């Protein structure tokens, strides 16, 4: 990888790696009597390893200008592999915590292995590790192809990818150590959050610079979504994580938001993380890989416009539906609920646009598991957005809130939509990236498809059942107007569903392992296939001179 960097970039890369090492050392010294010590040392080690890698390749021959006639795909390849490693890790943690709910002894009585610490490693591992790396990788691929322009330099993309993975490592290792600011999906502490801001702003600037160099008159829909994802996630992350550390030598910090405002900011963040990370970004993916694989034009450009602006506008208001029947004022709850209802139409319009794009390609959906992944993803996207709007209605929420129904809903989206669209995109992307005719084994893709679909359905049906049973048990009264069941009674009733959920998750995990194997074997296979069309616009060459 270092051989693709220019001399100046190597110098800069070394400088950045050393600066990271020094920051790590400073944190370790300042926090020598705090859990921060371990993170300081981890950052120091990470910086030193990066410095070593750069120095090792420092004297290699610098790339010539011929590199500019090809897209810059090196970081995308690494991103795909990182994403799949995080997928296997994050999904394994998910299966483990799911199993702990059925068999609590699997926590093994150690402080680091209880549900409270393992759960955020699962959510961070799959959302940020798997989802984030997949988004970074595919966005770099899509923006280059649909702009017919190469990334403007080699270093920024590596900084974004490697820096992002360092953030994920700090976050996940921190949860095991008990370092958390206890905000769901934003658990990482202040120093990790500051680092992510640097990475994310670089990502935004890189994306804008690439779009500015485009050789197409218009910006493609996929890039609208990717750009919304990058921009809004930056805003959400910064606002929700405004906090004051105890001192520069402490991992612990306190948020600047007081009381119910903190709850509101957190769920404005939380819901828009779903909207702009898990929806907008992956819609960008869908908008490129689905039509490419189906070899069909997008069903309706006008519908794309309606969906995009509807989704970006309405989602911003919907977060308060996470706080129905709480100390949050009534009027905020009404706004959250009504905007969630209005959000349904643009959401369904994008799912419908994706499915109608398949008109004329249904024979391919039947024969090609890769395309089937993307078709089912669009179906689950439609399903979970309907469910989300429905659950945002206050009386419905009074039954569903705090129950497993919420977990079922999230996983209908996370497994059925986010993960399936990613797998479909990766199976389309990997042969292109490594210039292979096709994936190593189409049969294994077929296996993966059925395992993933079965796993998702088992998981979601188990949680629907357990959630509704829980909700009903909590509100069943006796003739004397007292509660009919204690909480423990409802917990006992959940047991069969917890077992089923762990089993569904296990099937999904096995599918992800098969996917990783299939990708690695594709990379190793000798079956080369050069594509002459997959190059930037020739005019890009002149512009990108050194």
């Amino acid at each position: 990888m270092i051989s693709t960097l220019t001399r100046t970039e190597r110098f800069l890369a070394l400088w950045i790696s050393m600066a990271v090492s020094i920051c790590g050392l400073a944190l370790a010294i300042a926090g020598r009597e705090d859990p921060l010590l371990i993170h300081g040392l981890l950052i120091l080690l990470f910086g030193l390893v990066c410095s070593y890698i750069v120095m090792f390749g420092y004297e290699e021959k610098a790339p010539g200008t011929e590199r500019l006639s090809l897209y810059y795909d090196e970081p995308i390849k690494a991103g795909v592999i990182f994403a799949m490693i995080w997928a296997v890790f994050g999904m394994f943690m998910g299966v483990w915590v799911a199993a702990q709910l059925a068999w609590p002894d699997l926590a093994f009585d150690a402080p680091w292995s209880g549900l409270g610490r393992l759960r955020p490693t699962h959510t961070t591992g799959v959302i940020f590790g798997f989802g984030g790396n997949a988004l970074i990788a595919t966005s770099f691929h899509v923006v280059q192809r649909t702009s017919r322009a190469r990334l403007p330099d080699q270093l920024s993309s590596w900084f974004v990818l490697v820096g992002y993975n360092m953030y994920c490592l700090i976050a996940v290792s921190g949860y095991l150590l008990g370092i958390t600011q206890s905000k769901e999906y934003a658990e990482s502490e202040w120093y990790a959050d500051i680092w992510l801001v640097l990475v994310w702003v670089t990502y935004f600037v890189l994306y804008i610079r690439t779009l500015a160099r485009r050789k197409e008159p218009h910006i493609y829909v996929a890039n609208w979504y990717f750009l919304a994802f990058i921009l809004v996630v930056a805003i959400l992350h910064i606002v929700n994580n405004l906090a004051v550390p105890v001192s520069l030598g402490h991992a612990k910090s306190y948020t600047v938001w007081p009381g119910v405002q903190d709850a509101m900011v957190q769920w404005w963040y939380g819901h828009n993380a779903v909207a702009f990370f898990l929806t907008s970004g992956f819609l960008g993916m869908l908008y490129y890989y689905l039509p490419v694989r189906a070899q069909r034009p997008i069903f309706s450009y006008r519908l794309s416009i309606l969906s995009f602006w509807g989704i970006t506008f309405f989602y911003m208001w919907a977060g308060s539906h996470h706080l129905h029947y709480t100390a949050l004022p009534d009027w905020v709850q009404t706004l959250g609920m009504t905007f969630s209802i209005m959000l349904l139409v643009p959401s369904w319009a994008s799912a419908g646009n994706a499915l109608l794009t398949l008109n004329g390609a249904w024979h391919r959906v039947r024969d090609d598991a890769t395309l089937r992944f993307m078709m089912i993803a669009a179906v689950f996207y439609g399903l979970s957005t309907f469910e989300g709007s429905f659950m945002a209605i206050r009386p419905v929420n009074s039954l569903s809130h705090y129950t497993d129904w919420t977990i079922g809903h999230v996983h209908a989206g996370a497994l059925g939509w986010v993960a399936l669209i990613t797998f479909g995109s990766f199976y389309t992307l990997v042969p292109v990236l490594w210039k292979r005719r096709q994936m190593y084994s189409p049969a294994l893709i077929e296996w993966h498809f059925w395992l993933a679909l079965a796993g998702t359905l088992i998981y979601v049906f188990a949680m629907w059942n357990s959630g509704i049973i829980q909700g009903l048990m909590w509100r069943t009264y006796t003739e004397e107007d007292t509660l009919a069941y204690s909480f423990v009674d409802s917990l006992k009733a959940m047991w069969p569903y917890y077992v089923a959920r762990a089993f569904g998750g296990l099937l999904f995990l096995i599918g992800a392992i098969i996917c990783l194997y299939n990708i690695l074997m594709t990379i190793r296979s000798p079956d080369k296939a050069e594509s002459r069309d997959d190059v930037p616009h020739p005019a890009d060459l002149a512009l990108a001179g050194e």
Partner: protein
Amino acid sequence: MSVEERDPVSGERLTGHDWNGIKELDTPIPRGVLLFLIVTHIIAFALWVLTPAWPLGKSYTPGILGIDQKKAVEEQLVASAADKATWTKKIEVSDFPTIQADERMMLIVRSTGHQLFGDNCAACHGSDGKGRANYPDLTDDDWLWGGDVQRIAETVSVGVNSANAGSRIAEMPRFGVDQMLPREDVEKAANFVFSLSNPQFSQPANVETIAAGREVFLANCATCHGEDARGKQDVGAPNLTDERWIYGGDLDTIITTIHGGRRGHMPTWDQRLTPAEIKILALYVHSLGEGDS
């Protein structure tokens, strides 16, 4: 790039855009989508008019239905208490024998008691009331503080070693840690106590130790546990002659207990539960093992 280019499958016009082979149809937005969009907006507008919705500086639009969730909850609580009053009053004023004799009231005790016990007591005593290591079994007829309903109600109300000023107090001294007894005496006493519930342990080889342990016991333990070691319910000292143990009845655990002492804890409930609820729980717990009649 002709604008008139058409898609052969759908017959729709293409927009003329082309990104790396991806094209777009210029299909108009289906009428159903627009209709659906209008319907969801009408629902939203209606809710804005009917219920609290938009902020106005320091206040907000209250909505013509006058809905207020805090008021709604308060009203529901009042209504629920009024509904329940018919039987809670009866339980509050009746004494235990009257309630126990009334099959209708006992039905209420059993159904309500199950939920009260599950949400308040089961965390320590288990949802079946059988206890677990360090927490006593409530279904047997072995009671620390007495098993008649009145005494159970008293225990629930004030707790054991709790924050309540009238709490029941019970503490077994730390005979070893505080050097009240030398190590060998601790072991002798433990051997004696162990032999009480394990007759087969009284073999010729152990008789001497057991006899010596008995002396230690009489001098140090009998004040609370009684000379017959059958415990005293007025000081919460357990019976040591039966098979039921809170912390464990093997020799090692008995040594640990004498060495380090024991100080159990049960919270006080009189601030968290109503008098009627405490009565119900006492009757419920009593009924679990048919209590101490």
